[in-house]
């Protein structure tokens, strides 16, 4: 997809035989899939790295089952990894793949319906035996029954060639077979002219302690690469040129890594130690893992006994003067709400990162959804306002995590940071900021006992003072009971209670004046305004840009601040005849937009554990534009 919305060169069916031809394409979508134990996530991530280093723009979509090792060869055990890479800016992992790298019949069965007509299928023939075909529900071999006729099929005996490549190492059949993901990666790397050096380096460092395994994986990788080069099968080698990204230094990173780095950078810029209290939960655990490596930054990570203790310990650390964070996903978020209620009442800075997943209940832990918005804003006892933010892309996770810390400590308020599985596990190139470009976060711990009151307020932000226990002369008590304004003493006075409720609400409302102006993609007024939030950014942007290129009057606003909503939104919405709010839920933001702005906004909703496809958004927007 190019910026101006026109279709670009696609992979064509090769017609000529003879020497290898080089063909330049602008954008390719590849999906690797196999059993959940086949190492497909690893192959996908390494391919992403090779591709990022080559300078193309990327977006990825890992899609794996919740079972760690589901029974081999079954449909529900299929684990996939999709990557879209392009010489242009791209915003999504791509609707439909151009290339499938399939390690068994089940993977093919699950993924074939998504492949573009004329697309490439590389499959491991060793796995296409009767037993595996049956497990995948094939009555006839799809290689022979004509069902693959409209595609370019490259049958490769990946398993056998992998075994041969590592034969001399005498690893045993089981271990040797495990190297086949690297053979597949090597072959795909050759086909798309990706450098394999980054992967070789990665293997060497990953298997430092078992040089035999390192050697085996490198051999499998190189064998796959050379097979592409020498086999008669592949007539064309494809190249995707580097993308024209904004100048700067880049690295490839996932949303969860970006989140961890954003929190780390903010604590560093605030000059305050960071405390992370967390309980393992998919898809948030990676943030805990990542953060646990940063101990030399005075980072304390605490794996608690449960979700409640995780947020409780974080609140205790916030009280002690730390940048305090807890990370979780939907089911854990529910358990934390009472503690967030206490953080609201005691007006302490606390960051709650909810990496949303498919629900309700245990739901679809490894799939994505954005259905925790109303819970984040309203899901606590009584009047319990908090700030709610949501990053738009994996790289944006860095900026919004940083922002969460800035607002929490400035306003002495809990901040809910709503990422999701798609952002957390997805990757894209990130322009690395210089530390000097990052804003400094001012933290002032009160030490002056003169005139001290625990609930006195900053006239601008309404924040109460942050006092570290241990400060002489400022001993005081806080807690969940209703507080008297100023003194903080327990008070059941009716008017005082309402005053405090209003003060806490006003404090959160004032954050609206402290956020950047809302950006409108497209015209400032017109027929249709699409409003999105969170991880749907890329898909909506691409859909809107394509429709605009066709001359449609549609504009796009993407909200990263959900509570409070940006102050300028009330001026933007009335300039459009219609408002559409696509969300991966049953219509949550749309309810708020309707209530806040008295506008007949409509939702477009999908709750399938999968991100929006550009095509389905375009279709819906088109339909909505045409409707009377």
């Amino acid at each position, binding site marked *: 997809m190019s910026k101006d919305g026109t279709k670009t060169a696609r992979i064509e069916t090769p017609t000529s035989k003879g020497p290898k031809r080089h063909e330049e394409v602008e954008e390719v979508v590849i999906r690797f899939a196999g059993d959940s134990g086949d190492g497909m996530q690893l192959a996908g991530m390494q391919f992403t790295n090779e591709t990022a280093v080559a300078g193309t723009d990327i977006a990825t979509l890992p899609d794996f089952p919740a079972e760690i090792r589901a029974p081999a060869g079954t449909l529900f055990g299929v684990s996939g990894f999709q990557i879209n890479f392009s010489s242009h800016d791209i915003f999504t992992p791509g609707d439909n793949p151009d290339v499938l790298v399939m390690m068994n019949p089940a993977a093919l069965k699950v993924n074939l319906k998504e492949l573009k007509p004329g697309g490439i299928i590389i499959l491991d023939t060793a796995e296409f035996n009767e037993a595996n075909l049956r497990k995948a529900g094939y009555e006839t071999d799809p290689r022979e029954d004509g069902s693959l006729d409209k595609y370019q099929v490259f049958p490769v005996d990946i398993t056998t060639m992998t075994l041969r490549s590592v034969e001399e190492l005498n690893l045993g059949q089981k271990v040797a077979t495990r190297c086949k993901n690297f053979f597949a990666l090597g072959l795909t790397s050759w086909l798309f002219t990706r450098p394999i050096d980054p992967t070789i380096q990665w293997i060497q460092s990953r298997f430092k302690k078992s040089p035999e395994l390192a050697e085996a994986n490198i051999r499998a990788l190189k064998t796959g690469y050379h097979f592409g080069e020498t086999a008669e099968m592949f007539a064309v080698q494809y190249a995707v040129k580097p993308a024209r990204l904004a100048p700067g230094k880049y690295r490839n990173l996932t949303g969860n890594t970006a989140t961890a780095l954003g929190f780390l950078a903010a604590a560093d810029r605030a000059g305050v130690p960071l405390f992370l209290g967390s309980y393992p939960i998919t898809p948030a655990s990676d943030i805990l893992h990542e953060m646990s490596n940063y101990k030399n930054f005075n980072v304390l990570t605490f794996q608690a006994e449960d979700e409640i203790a995780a947020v409780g310990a974080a609140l*205790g650390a916030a009280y002690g003067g730390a940048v305090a964070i807890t990370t979780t996903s939907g089911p854990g978020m529910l358990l934390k709400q009472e503690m967030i209620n206490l953080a609201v009442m005691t007006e302490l800075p606390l960051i709650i990162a909810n990496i949303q997943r498919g629900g309700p209940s245990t739901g679809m832990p490894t799939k994505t959804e954005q259905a925790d918005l109303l819970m984040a804003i309203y899901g606590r006892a009584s009047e319990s306002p908090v700030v709610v933010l949501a990053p738009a892309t994996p790289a944006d996770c860095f900026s919004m995590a940083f922002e969460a810390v800035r607002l929490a400590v400035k306003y002495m308020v809990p901040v809910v940071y709503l990422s999701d599985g798609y952002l957390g596990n997805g990757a894209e190139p990130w322009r690395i900021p210089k530390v000097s470009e990052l804003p400094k976060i001012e933290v002032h711990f009160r030490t002056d006992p003169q005139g001290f009151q625990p609930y006195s307020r900053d006239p601008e932000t309404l924040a109460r003072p942050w006092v570290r226990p241990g400060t002489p002369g400022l001993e005081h*008590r806080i807690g969940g009971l209703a507080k008297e304004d100023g003194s903080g003493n327990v008070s059941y006075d009716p008017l005082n209670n309402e005053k405090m409720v209003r003060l806490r609400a006003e404090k959160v409302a004032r954050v609206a004046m402290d956020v950047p102006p809302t950006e409108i993609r497209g015209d400032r007024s017109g027929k249709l305004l699409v409003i999105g939030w969170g991880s749907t950014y890329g898909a909506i942007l691409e859909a809107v840009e394509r429709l605009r290129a066709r001359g449609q009057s549609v504009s796009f606003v993407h909200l990263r601040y959900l509570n409070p909503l940006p102050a300028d939104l009330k001026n933007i919405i009335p300039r459009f005849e219609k408002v559409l709010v696509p969300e991966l839920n049953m219509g949550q933001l749309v309810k708020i937009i309707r209530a806040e702005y008295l506008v007949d906004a409509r939702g477009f909703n999908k709750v399938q554990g999968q991100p929006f496809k550009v095509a389905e958004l375009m279709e819906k927007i088109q339909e909505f534009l045409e409707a009377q």
Partner: protein
Amino acid sequence: MMSEATELKLTRKDFASDQEVRWCPGCGDYSILAQVQKVLPELNIPREKFVFISGIGCSSRFPYYMNTYGFHTIHGRAPAIATGLKVARPDLHVWVVTGDGDGLSIGGNHLIHALRRNVGIKILLFNNRIYGLTKGQYSPTSELFKVTKSTPFGSVDYPINPVEIALGAEATFVARTIDVEAKHLQETLKRAHEHKGSAFIEILQNCNIFNDGAWEPLTDKNSKADTTLVLEHGKPLIFGKRRDKGIRLRRDMSPEVVTLGGEVDQSQLLVHDETRPAMAYILSRLGAHFPTPIGVFRAWKRMTYDQGAHVQVENAKKKLGPGNLEAILNRGDTWVVE
């Protein structure tokens, strides 16, 4: 930081806040508050270094009455919040005040894990065997068949033993004392303070409104010498008004009460040893026909969680150097776009 050698000359008054104490007149909590306010000034530590953290229940109003830092939190979660504070701020003296409902029912999980981790916090569990603040329902330490508002036909719940829970969690300091035993309570508080690591004290406390006399046999002047067994490290287990009864171990390892005299002399009695887990376990389960032990069941040393966490931070700094944000942002494979 102020040297602890400096005489601070603090008094009980320095630790009393300006808030009116609002427990029911005659409540055992008054005595516990008084003993804490008596002991703390003697420790010669500035009062701003103390933080009292509580959950919900009558006992949990405690922090409001202490002129130290205080945090009245939510039901059952005080050990979790205290853990976060102590790990982030090992320089503070963090005390948790909880009750039998708060600490053993809704917050049982946090209590177990705070003790298991050996976080350097001191946990005072006021055990009155009843829910007082909610006006008299049975608690997890209430006896079987207890008749309360929520169990008019008697409770069919078996009670839990707080000391056993603490021992099972491998707490490094486990003690029991009684609200009205002022001296014993003070001594136990001091021992807990001196202990490095998590300390657990079960304080038997009377709720004179909803469960009056729950511990009366242990506090009544006429009976307490026969009904309590005061534990002292290195001393034989002797009790009774005339100090003529003791605890002996049978060949099958079960304890028995024996009367001293005749063929039975002190040398046959168990000698208390705070460092032996088996001893603590036997004492924690003596049962109905035995006196109730008070004192320190178990005291031993192992790494505290807060120590461990900070040693890791220091080691990481030594190994990797102090955190360099620029370097960490630029880590891994990078490329430059001109």
